[in-house]
């Protein structure tokens, strides 16, 4: 991305819905899609006298993520009230963390064109989600709003980066890696459409070389990687144009309009961002001992960025391959399971990235439900390697192997697809073909070299694609040049 003398300065705030069974401060279910207001109780409806009791699993998850992102885990943290008046917030305040969050000062490394870039994490804190407002029309034209408190008090982790991100591309890489970490840690499903992984961005621009930050705007509720990249690019360009024309950036909240591809100012909501934070009197300070942290540390899985480094070293694959394989934990396991049986990593990776991913997409399946087992893929690759079938035949039967789950060996036998590697058999077919096309043979001999492909094609057609291509080429050349 080139902004001609300018650069973007981006900080991201991510809200991740946690995979707990119950809410942050009460025992109501967090399950998505239930009948409105059926997952509610006095606590998450903010009824007088109800008191919050902290869900221990949320603390577990926060520590898990904090350790994964190299944060300091604060042995003491406190909850705070963030006060504002809105119908989706039944208590009139959100319980969050403000002055002493649970995790601080971490980092996440991303790679742009093979180059490492470190994005610092300022803080991670726990907070409760608000309820959901539903409108029959659009929010602007509706004469009323409908409120569903099922989401009220569903636990969130907010992950705040330092303004270390310079381009939309870096922002997307950071978000993808963060999302992969959350999924690997099994603390968030990462579903952006359902809002389990939401992002707000603080964006400003400055001349390259400047060290001061410009005035920033906030982009709200970016819910797909594509739109995040587009809206950040638009907003950076908008601010640069504004400054070049002698204007000034106004600090405000802006929304991205997907249809028009522009950001526009969110009117009406700017007034009084005065949250009057104060320590939550209904919750005691949270004290975390070393043992708790060490127990969690011991149970951490291999994280995506660790797996990427291991795959690069162990399998000697290009980073491009590795990032695709590792982006899905099941796909990475699939790869490793296959390589155990067929130890040619690059071949396995190629087949996964082309044939398998295409079949998954066509069948709308996830890697964990792959329609062909690693054992069968390894068997197929072995058949190709030992010359039993050609690569072409292998690719042709791949969809059928996926549909039927059949053993590749058995299918190849049953369908008579075994490659012809018998020299005399191929030579015989070559003679037949050359006899059939005397004109072409003459042209070839007169120097029309590209007719070789024609002859190869004819022999393949005659043998239903079963002739060993390498052998065929050799024999054909020998015969024609004789």
């Amino acid at each position, binding site marked *: 991305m080139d902004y001609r003398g300018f650069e973007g300065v981006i900080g991201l705030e991510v809200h991740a819905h946690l995979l*707990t*069974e*119950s809410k942050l401060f*009460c*025992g*109501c*279910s967090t399950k998505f899609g239930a*009948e*409105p*207001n*059926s*997952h*509610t*109780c006095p606590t998450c*409806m903010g009824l007088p006298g109800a008191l919050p*009791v*902290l*869900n*221990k*699993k*949320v*603390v577990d998850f926060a520590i898990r993520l904090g350790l994964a992102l190299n944060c300091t885990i604060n042995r003491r943290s*406190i909850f705070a009230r963030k*006060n*504002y*008046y*809105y*119908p989706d917030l039944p208590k*009139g305040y959100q319980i969050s963390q403000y002055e002493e969050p649970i995790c601080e000062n971490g980092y996440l490394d991303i790679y742009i064109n093979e180059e490492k870039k470190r994005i610092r994490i300022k803080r991670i804190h726990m907070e409760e989600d608000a309820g959901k*407002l*539903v409108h029959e029309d659009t*929010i*602007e034209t*509706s*004469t*009323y*709003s*409908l*409120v*569903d*408190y099922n989401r009220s008090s569903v636990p969130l982790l907010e992950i705040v980066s330092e303004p270390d991100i310079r381009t939309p591309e870096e922002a997307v890489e950071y978000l993808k890696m963060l999302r992969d970490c959350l999924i690997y840690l099994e603390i968030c499903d990462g579903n952006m459409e359902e809002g389990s992984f939401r992002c707000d961005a603080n964006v400003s621009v400055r001349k390259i070389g400047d060290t001061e930050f410009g005035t920033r705007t906030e982009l709200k509720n970016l819910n797909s990687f594509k739109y995040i990249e587009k809206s950040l690019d638009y907003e950076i360009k908008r601010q640069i144009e504004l400054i070049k024309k002698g204007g000034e950036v106004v600090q405000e909240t802006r929304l991205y309009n997907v249809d028009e591809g522009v950001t526009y100012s969110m*009117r*009406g*909501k700017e007034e*009084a961002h*005065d949250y*009057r934070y104060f*320590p939550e*009197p209904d*919750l*005691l*300070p*949270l*004290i975390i001992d070393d043992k708790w942290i060490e127990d969690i540390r011991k149970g951490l899985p291999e994280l995506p960025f660790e797996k990427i480094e291991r795959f690069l070293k162990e399998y000697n694959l290009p980073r491009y391959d590795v990032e695709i394989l590792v982006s899905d934990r099941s796909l990475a396991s699939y790869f490793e399971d296959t390589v155990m049986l067929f130890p040619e990593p690059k071949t396995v990776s190629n087949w996964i990235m082309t044939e398998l991913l295409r079949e998954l997409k066509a069948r709308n399946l996830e890697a964990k439900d792959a329609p062909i087992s690693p054992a069968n893929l390894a068997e197929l690759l072995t058949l190709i390697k030992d010359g039993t079938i050609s690569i072409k035949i292998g690719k042709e039967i791949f969809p059928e192997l996926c549909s039927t789950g059949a053993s590749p060996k058995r299918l190849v036998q049953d369908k008579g697809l075994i490659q012809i590697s018998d020299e005399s058999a191929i030579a015989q077919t070559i003679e037949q073909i050359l006899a059939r096309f005397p004109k072409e043979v003459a042209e070839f001999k007169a120097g029309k070299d590209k007719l070789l492909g024609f002859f190869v094609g004819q022999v393949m057609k005659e043998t239903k694609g079963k002739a060993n291509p390498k052998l065929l080429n050799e024999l054909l050349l020998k015969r024609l040049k004789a």
Partner: protein
Amino acid sequence: MKITSETVEYVAHLARLELAREEIDLYTNQLNSILDYMDALNRLDTQGIEPTSHPMPLNCVMRDDDIRESFTVEASTQNAPERIGSFFKVPPIIEVEE
């Protein structure tokens, strides 16, 4: 630190409260006398003392991540002045610019 009537009006607005002129004056006086009283605390030397966020020196009590029974929709919405289906119905949120 004195509270002015503007501060009272501002805070009332944040809480979406509509106050009459005499109420604003009343609360301004009351809030000021509370703050005057609190000023007594400022006479203490708190140098080097950690701020108290809670009066009790206990660790936060936690619960396991178990689901407990929720309200029925009938119960959760029974106090709603207006409802549509299982939803609370409330006035529109984004006001037209003033």
